[in-house]
C-alpha cells in the first residue's frame, strides 16, 4: 500500500540493484525483532487458517479419523462427482441462491434507504434517537433472535395473529410452513441489521460537501433533484464496495440462523449448502470427506464471485477492493 509512497526515505527499498541474498541478510539484520514479534501471529494464521485450507485435501480421500490424512485412501474426484449427482443438489443450489438473492434485493438496499432517510431528518435529536434504536438488534445474539422469532410466528404468536387479522392468513405455526421460511428469514435479517448496515452509508453522507447542496439550491434544484443528483452519486463508491463485500459473502448465507430456525418440514425451502455441509459432517449420514467436498465447492464459488465482481466493478467505475 504505502510502502513506496515516499521515495528517498527507505534506503533498502530504494536500491534494488543489491543482490537478493545480501538484501535478505540486511533485511533480517535490521528487522529480526519485527519478525520475532510477528511469529505468534504467523503461527496463528498457519495453524487456524492455512492448515484447514490444506485440510481440503481430504475431499479427495475417503478420510478416516483413525487413519489420519496420511493413511486415508485417495479416491480422486469421487466425492465431487457424487455431489454433482446428489438428488439434493438442485434444492441446495436453488435455496442458497434464493436466500442470497433475496438478501441482496431487500436487506442490502434497506440500509441505504434508511441512511438516506436519517440523513434528511431535520432534528438532530431525532436522528440520534433513530440511530440508537436501530442499532440495538445487532447486539442481540442470533440464538435469542431465533427464540423471539419462534415465539412471534407460533400458532398464537403476535405476527401470526397480526397477519391473520389483517390479511386473513391461516393461523398456523409459520415455521412449519416451507413457503414462509424465506420471508421470515429476510424480515428478521432486516430487523437485525438495517441500522447497523446503515452506519457506513451515514458516515459517507456526512462527508458530502454541503456547498454542493447550496450551489444546487441556488440553481433551483428541489429536494428530489438534490437527492438524485448529489446525494446518491456521492454514495455510489460506498455502495459499490459494500456490494462487492456482500456478493463475496453471498453464498455464505447465514447458516447459523437457518440451523436455529429450520426443521425437516422446511428443508425443502430452507436447506442451503452450508447447512448441508454441517448435517453431512456431524448429524446425518456422516461423511467428513463428502462434507468437505461440498464445502470446498462452496468456498471456490465464493472466491470466484468476489474476484469477478471486483474485476467488473473496477472496469466500470474504478471502485474496487484491491
Amino acid at each position, binding site marked *: 500500500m504505502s510502502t513506496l509512497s515516499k521515495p528517498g526515505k527507505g534506503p533498502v527499498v530504494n536500491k534494488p540493484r543489491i543482490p537478493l541474498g545480501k538484501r535478505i541478510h540486511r533485511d533480517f539484520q535490521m528487522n529480526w525483532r519485527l519478525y520475532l514479534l510477528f511469529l505468534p501471529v504467523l503461527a496463528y494464521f498457519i495453524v*487456524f487458517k492455512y492448515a484447514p485450507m490444506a485440510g481440503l485435501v481430504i475431499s479427495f480421500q475417503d478420510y478416516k479419523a483413525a487413519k489420519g490424512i496420511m493413511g486415508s485412501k485417495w479416491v480422486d474426484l469421487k466425492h465431487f462427482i457424487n455431489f454433482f449427482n446428489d438428488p439434493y443438489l438442485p434444492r441446495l443450489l436453488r435455496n442458497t441462491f434464493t436466500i442470497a438473492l433475496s438478501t441482496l434485493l431487500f436487506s442490502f438496499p434497506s440500509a441505504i434507504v434508511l441512511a438516506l432517510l436519517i440523513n434528511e431528518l431535520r432534528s438532530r435529536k431525532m436522528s440520534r434517537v433513530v440511530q440508537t434504536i436501530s442499532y440495538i438488534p445487532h447486539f442481540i445474539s442470533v440464538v435469542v433472535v431465533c427464540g423471539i422469532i419462534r415465539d412471534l410466528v407460533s400458532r398464537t404468536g403476535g405476527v401470526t395473529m397480526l397477519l391473520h387479522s389483517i390479511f386473513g392468513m391461516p393461523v398456523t405455526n409459520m415455521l412449519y410452513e416451507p413457503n414462509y421460511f424465506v420471508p421470515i428469514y429476510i424480515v428478521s435479517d432486516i430487523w437485525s441489521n438495517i441500522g447497523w448496515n446503515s452506519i457506513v452509508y451515514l458516515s459517507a453522507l456526512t462527508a458530502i460537501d454541503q456547498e454542493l447542496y447550496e450551489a444546487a439550491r441556488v440553481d433551483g434544484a428541489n429536494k428530489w433533484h438534490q437527492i438524485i443528483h448529489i446525494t446518491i452519486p456521492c454514495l455510489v463508491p460506498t455502495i459499490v464496495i459494500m456490494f462487492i463485500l456482500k456478493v463475496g459473502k453471498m453464498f455464505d448465507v447465514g447458516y447459523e440462523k437457518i440451523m436455529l430456525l429450520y426443521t425437516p418440514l422446511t428443508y425443502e425451502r430452507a436447506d442451503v449448502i452450508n447447512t448441508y455441509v454441517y448435517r453431512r459432517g456431524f448429524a446425518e449420514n456422516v461423511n467428513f470427506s463428502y462434507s468437505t467436498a461440498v464445502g470446498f465447492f462452496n468456498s471456490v464459488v465464493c472466491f470466484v464471485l468476489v474476484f469477478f465482481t471486483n474485476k467488473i466493478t473496477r472496469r466500470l467505475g474504478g471502485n474496487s477492493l484491491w
Partner: protein
Amino acid sequence: MSSVTKPNEKKAIRIPLGERIFYAADDLLMILLCVLILIPLIHVVAGSFSDGASYMAHSGLLLWPLKPTLAAYESVIANQNIWTGYRNTLFIVIVGTSLDMLFSLVAAYVLSRKKYMLKKFFNLMVVFSMYFSGGMIPFFIVVKGVGLYKSIWALILPSLINVFNLVIVRTAMTGVPDSLEESAQLDGAGHLTILFRIITPLILPSVAVVALYYAVSHWNSWFNAMLFIKDRKYYPLQLILREILILSDTDEGFMMSETIQFATIVVATIPILCVYPFIQRYFVKGIMVGAVKG
C-alpha cells in the same frame, strides 16, 4: 455524535410545500421504523414479567405484562445452568477479548510498519484468509488435531484474529505520523514500547470499537461451542439459551414455559446492551475505516 446532521438552513429560505410534506413523511416513517424495531423487544420484556398461565391463554403481541409477577425471573435465577453458562461466557469474553486484542494489535503493528521485505507477503497472507477458507470440517479436524476438542480454549484460540477487525486497527495505525515512532526509536524504545506506549493510546477509539466487536462476537457465538464443547459444565450461555429457546419447542425434555424463556432472554441480553451506548459514538469511525480499506 458526529453523524448525519445538517446545519439548520438559514430561516430566510422559505421551505416549499412539497419539501414540508417530504420532511413530515420522513419523520413519520422513522417513528414507524423505531416502533417496528422495538415492538418485539417490548413483547419479550412484557412477557417476562407476565404470569405464565395468563400468557399461555393469551395470543398476539404484548405491550404490557399480564398480571405482573416476578415468578419467571425467580425460576431463571434458580436455574443453575444459566449461572454456569454465565460464568463460562464471562471467562471466554474476558480472556478471549484480551488475547484477541493483544494479537490484533501486534499483527496490525507489524503489518503497518514500513521498510521490511515480507510486508507485502504478510498482508497478502492475512487478506487472502478473509476470502478463502478451508470450511467447517477441515477446521474441525485441525482444532481437534491440536488438542482443543472438548476444551473451552477451542472457543478462544481458533478465533484470535478476525481479519476485518485487524484491518480496522491496521488502518488506524497507518494514520499515526512516522515522526513519533522515529523519535521514540532514537530514545531507544523497542517495538513493544512503541506499540503499547505510543501508538495504542493514539488510536484508542479504533481499539475500543474493535474490542467491542470481539467481546460481542464472543458473547453471542454458539456454533463453535456446539461443535467443540461436549461437557455441560463448560457450556457457554448461548448454548444454554439454545436449549431453552430453540430445543424446548421441539424436544419434550427441554420443555419450558414461555415467560421463563423471555426472562432468560432479558437476563442474557441486558449486559451486552448496557455496554454498547458507551462505545456507540466510536462506531462510525471504526466501521468506516474497516469497510473502505477492507
